[in-house]
């Protein structure tokens, strides 16, 4: 689903990609390419989102009502599909990030114990 460039960082938990996508879109409407680029950039090139996972995730989120999609002009003036977070999507992002925070803290506790 997500391929890390550093293979030793372990596989991420399922649903994480959707959370990352929601997070990327929290900054405002974006098209798929920008979402992938943003995640790649912000993760310090550690996370690389594969298109084969990204688009199904986007469509799934759209279908379930967390995202709205509309066609608009991209930065270089080409027609592109922009995704925007819905109110449901914002709520979902909050819930997911809380869950993630708890989970990563718990994992950190376990890993840091001596």
């Amino acid at each position, binding site marked *: 689903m997500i391929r890390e460039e550093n293979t030793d960082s372990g596989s991420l938990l399922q649903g994480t990609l959707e959370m990352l996508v929601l997070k990327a879109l929290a900054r405002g409407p974006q*098209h*798929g*390419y920008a979402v992938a680029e943003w995640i790649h950039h912000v993760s310090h090139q550690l996370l690389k989102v594969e*298109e*084969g996972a990204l*688009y*199904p995730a986007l*469509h*799934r989120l*759209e*279908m*379930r*009502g*967390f995202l709205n999609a509309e*066609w608009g002009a*991209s930065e*270089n003036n*080409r*027609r*592109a*599909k922009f995704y925007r977070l819905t109110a*449901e999507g914002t709520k979902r992002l909050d819930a997911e990030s809380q869950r993630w925070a708890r989970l990563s803290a718990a994992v950190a506790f376990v890993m840091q114990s001596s």
Partner: protein
Amino acid sequence: MLPAISAFLGRLRSLFRGRRMESEMSEEIAFHRERLREKYLQEGMSEKAAERAARVRLGNAQRWQERLRELWSFRILEELTRDIRFSLRLLWKSPGFTAVGLATLALGVSANTAVFSLINSLLLRPLAVPQAQQMVVLSTQEGAPQPGYSFCTPFFRGLEGKGDVFQNVFAFVNDTLQVRGESGNVNVHGVMVSGQYFPAMQVKPVMGRYLTPADDQEGGGSSGFAVVISEDFWKTWFNGVPDVVGRSLMIANASFTVVGVIPKSFTGADPTHHPQIYAPLSADPIIDAPRDHLHGGTHAWWLTVMARLQPGVDLQKANAALQAVSTGVLHTSTGEADWIKDEEQHHFHFAAEPGSNGFAYVRSVFRKPLLMMFGMCGGLLLLACLNLASLLLARGAVRERELATRRALGATRLRLIRQLMIESLFLATLGTGLGMALTPIVGHALAAMLSGGSGPDSMSLDISPDWRLYGFAAAVAFIAAVLIGLMPAWRATEGDLNEQIKNGQHAQQQRRQTRLIPRLLMISQVALALILVSGAALLATSLVRLYRSGLGFDPHGVVNISFSMDKQQLDGEPLMEVYRQIWDGLKTAPGVKDVSFQFVVPLSHRGWNGHYAAPGGERHLLWLNSVGPDYFNTMRIPLDQGRGFTWSDTKSSGLKIILNRSAAKLFFPQGGAIGRQIVDRDKVAYEVVAVVGDAKYRDVRGPAAPAGYVPMQQDSQKKPSLSAVVRVDGPWQPLVQFSRELTARLVPSIPAPVIRPMDEVVDTSINTERMMALLGVFFAGCSLLVTAIGLYGTLSYATARRTNEIGIRIALGAQRRRVMAMIFRENAVVATIGCGAGLAVAVSLSTVLTSFLYETSTRDPWIFAGATFTLVCVASAASLLPAVRASWIDPMQAIRSE
């Protein structure tokens, strides 16, 4: 919105905008690719390399669409449409198979739904009134196994006021009313109803009001007699004028006021009659003049009585209440003391039974034949399904390799079964649809057959489809689909994949086991066909014997022309003079050979009887008829001794009677009846002037009853309405116009005379037998055809699979005759076992036909032998063709083709 609901709606939307979504998806991916390419260019790649890298990274555009579409689509639905398309293509590719399948199914379904529509309208459909389940039919019980449904006025009036368990108790009687039109009187179908009839029905009139208890009084309501008319009658008779309420109608020469119009949806308490006029019961002495049933006391049993239960009262309570009042009503009925005592000894009491679908006399007559017919139709449909199943099975065997390959490629077994089931569902649905389209035609034909043509007792059945019929058809389609498809689908997809692919066409393995089920199917088909054929043979034999039994008169070329004389002014000698003028007139009509008159038309189920005795002898029941001069010659009833009646046998010339042979033998066993006398109950003496041959009186079944004939002029009845019997040479149709003109000239006030050929009367009297035999033979023919197709089809498929093997056999020197015998034997075994099983079932089932058979044993060995022989012939013919074809296989070609 919940994510699941949102997803569902999204998928639903995508169903309707599939094309647009696809183009949007590819555009989205194209945009991504473009951006990637730009990025690679910026990173310093060459134009070509960037293009290539972007393409490689995103992969095949087709696959993208597939993946995203899958997300948005209902998977099952998608697969389903694909399966349906595939099934249609397959069916289209084998038009012969499809046509045969559809035709047999359509036949079975249309027969079934048509009979069901009759059953529905006659037995199932409730009255079109609110809370129909509250309706009950009242009857009288007097120890006989069958309750009586006819009431006399005193009984009905005695029950009418009992309001503690019933909201209303009401009575009605179907009748023919003489209504004056522009050109003389016309017969209109109507019903006389008691005051509580409409309050019980709770129907709102289209306009005006309905009849109330105030209308059902001696002499009618405050402003004379009132009638309610049907919506149809309003439209046809009154041309739908808006001010019809208040207009008057002349019925039986008396004035009636129209007070209301009843909507079309309401057809009365008898579902088999659609009355045009509803008149109050109290008008009976006028409407039925010169007869008067209303004041006939306990001698006129003319009413059907129904009631509406009080809310919350059940049948048991109602019956208890009726039982409690029975004795009281009986005693106040003013019957003779002897009779009351006799009734009491037989535990006389009233009873109620469910009446939500009204009361129809014909129900008791047609229930059994209809259910019988339903059984036959069911058999035919089952046969059609079995046939299709075995054909599909045979075809499935041919498709074995295709299915095995598909399974090897990853199709689940369930998926394949589903696809095969869709195929059969398609056949079933199309077949049912076709059958439904044919249903009205078949249904009307059956209803016409059942109701007995244009006779006076004909009934009108409303066989328009309703939810019951549609539900039934849907159930038939579903069951047919399962019957047809499940087994072949199951069989076709089981078994070892490797073996099937390896063996392909010349699959030899486990022949015995895999061929057991198709054989069982064919055996049951043959057995079912034999049951239908032998049932039909029994019915047909009985009908032929019935026709051959001899009526005692010759109905061919005889027509009855009935004149309704009861409402005109003349009676006695002057009326007889009119009849004589009609007689003279009819004799001049073209083609007429003989003319006479009769009161009772034989075999019309009307009757008139009395008890007579020879002086000093015992009293016997004698069936009577009053007839005109030249009657026996006209009817071709042989005159053994004595003379026929003449116009001079008047009231003043002394009472005369003519006996038939049975009656003469009964009264004068020693012979010599001529010139002797017999006396009736009132000691009135009649002189026997002739003995004539026995003729059937009321019923074709059974021997002729003892009967006597009296001269029409000596009939004590008031204003007798006689029928002219006319023997014609050639077509009788010109007589319609002729007799109409004759009547208009001689007695202009009576309705146009009704003409019925005697043949039709005879046919109608054995209607049930005729219909059952005709349908039985038709169904048997169909079942033979279907079985032949099945035997031929399955054997052809089976031989086609063995082409290779047979080719080798022939190449190795097998004689062609031996090959033929080998193939033929396959079906011979099936047919023999099927016949055996069918015969056993047919013999044990045939007893249900007993009541429909005339002088025909349900165990008649000749009939069963004949049926079996017919079936064996058909089966042999159907099996011979594939066998012969197999024997002509060219070994070189057969072996090379593999």
